[in-house]
């Protein structure tokens, strides 16, 4: 009788080196998928061009002299384009990180991901890197376009603006992880919720207009959302704090809120994701869709 061979248990792979190696592999996989759909990438660029052109033309309708007016309100252009940059990162994060879990469920590759002993957090973070790359390119394009359409944008305090932006991004990725957790629970309804969140952000965090145009009651609610401080601090810093900016609080307070948001939210998001994942595994609903 042939003795049975011992089978190694495929426990989770541990250690920083393994985690980074998994991250690299997952990022390569995500990048490969992106590269297989070049039309998608080109379409993204055209879409940004059209969005910027439409909202710029709309805002120029309110300028004396209309679209032919030169340098029509560079502060307003700054409010809009720097807000737009934060907006596309938030949107991309919600859909690329949060909703990607749903995509894996739908195309039937979620099981493979869970059967491999690789870190699940690396899988989530890999989507962050791709988002950074593609959305960064789109943001650069939108700034260039806006400059071409309305003249030079105000550009001050780049180092502090970069720090605020990194913190906003970190916090936004945390929201993405939390949304991925919610996707595991809500499944198809998550897409509708993503739409609501996107519009909620557009309305309450004022990426396309100053906060002062919102009614007082709405502004009070806006002050409860950390991302609002991120939008306000980022664009006010880049515009060199013109009169009336930042609008929600002093810049010191806004930077403190944004820093706390950027440091805490990713940890909270990952914790929520792990919690929801365990809940789904216990209930056998992880692969349901």
């Amino acid at each position, binding site marked *: 009788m042939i003795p049975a061979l011992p089978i190694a248990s495929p426990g989770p792979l541990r250690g920083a080196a393994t985690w980074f190696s998994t991250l690299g592999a997952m990022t390569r996989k995500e990048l490969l998928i992106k590269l297989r759909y070049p039309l998608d990438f080109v379409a*993204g660029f055209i879409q940004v061009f059209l969005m910027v052109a439409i909202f710029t033309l709309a*805002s120029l309708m309110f300028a004396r002299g209309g679209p032919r007016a030169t340098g029509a309100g560079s502060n307003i252009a700054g409010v809009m384009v720097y807000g737009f940059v934060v907006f596309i990162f938030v949107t991309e994060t919600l859909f690329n990180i949060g909703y990607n879990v749903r995509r894996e469920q739908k195309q039937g590759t979620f099981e493979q991901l869970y059967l491999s002993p690789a870190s699940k957090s690396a899988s989530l973070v890999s989507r962050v890197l791709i988002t950074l790359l593609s959305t960064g390119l789109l943001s650069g394009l939108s700034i260039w376009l806006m400059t071409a359409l309305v003249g030079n944008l105000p550009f001050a305090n780049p180092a502090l603006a970069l720090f605020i932006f990194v913190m906003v991004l970190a916090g936004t990725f945390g929201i993405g992880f939390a949304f991925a957790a919610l996707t595991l629970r809500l499944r198809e309804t998550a897409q509708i919720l993503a739409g609501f969140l996107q*519009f909620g952000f557009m309305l309450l965090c004022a990426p396309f207009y100053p906060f002062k145009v919102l009614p007082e009651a709405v502004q009070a609610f806006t002050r409860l959302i950390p991302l609002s401080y991120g939008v306000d601090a980022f664009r006010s810093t880049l515009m060199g704090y013109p009169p009336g900016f930042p609008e929600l609080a002093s810049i010191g307070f806004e930077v403190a809120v944004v820093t706390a948001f950027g440091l805490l939210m990713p940890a909270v998001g990952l914790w929520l994701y792990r919690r929801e994942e365990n809940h789904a595994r216990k209930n056998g609903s992880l692969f349901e869709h």
Partner: protein
Amino acid sequence: MTALALRSNFGAALAETRLRLYTLSRYPAQLAMEILIPILYAAMPILLGKASAGPEAAANFLGNAGTAQYAAYLLIGSNVYIVVNRAFWDLAYWLRYEQETGTLEAVYLTPTSSLTLAAGVALYSALRSLITSGLAYVIGCLLFGVNPFQGNLLLALAFILVGLVPVSAMAFLFTAVILRVKEANSLVNVMQWGVSFFMGVFFPIAALPPILRFLCWLFPATWMVNGARAAILDLGFFFDSWYGDLAILWSFLLFLPLFSAWVFQRVENNLRRNRGLGEF
């Protein structure tokens, strides 16, 4: 075609409409979003304009767009856009949706043509978008302090209804492109912003350079939105009279459905011969 065949086709188209409406009734949140979206879409330039121009907002808008009623102008634009956009999403994405849900084969096994079923989808899309955008227009006007019942609403509705047929036909033409290229989401996403730009959703197309203006005139939705704005806000028609502009829309209506059907059938036959219809 005999009267019996006509009746059967009409019944099949209506069945498709009913099926879609039944599916939609399962997702009331989608309808709520559709009422909210055009209001928010118009709210952004309204708020931005108020912030940038302050008390001069109305005067500046009058100088640039021909009316001081900027909230109504932008709301008409965003609501007509939703009607047009809906037609593109529903029709252009129609066969792709069937492919993704695995029901495409069942659709092709039914004893009716894909053109008949597309007509049913177009009817469903028109019903859905006219109801939601009508509600969104009234709610938006009330929110921004505009009278929603001002102007010649019947004439505005005539422009929208006549324009919907060629717009749906264009969307159907787009279905053929999607069947061929497959990447439906990207194409429809770009298309929805392209539609919004070329119809002049938030600005008069006179603000664009001559070449772009010419391209806008080739797009039926431009005539729809301009006709609706001219009828409600007493702005100028492209041909100085409502019947001149409506005649252009009628010419689109006579030409585009036939052209789209011809192109679609050619692409469809080609894909069926080359076994590419079920692939995605």
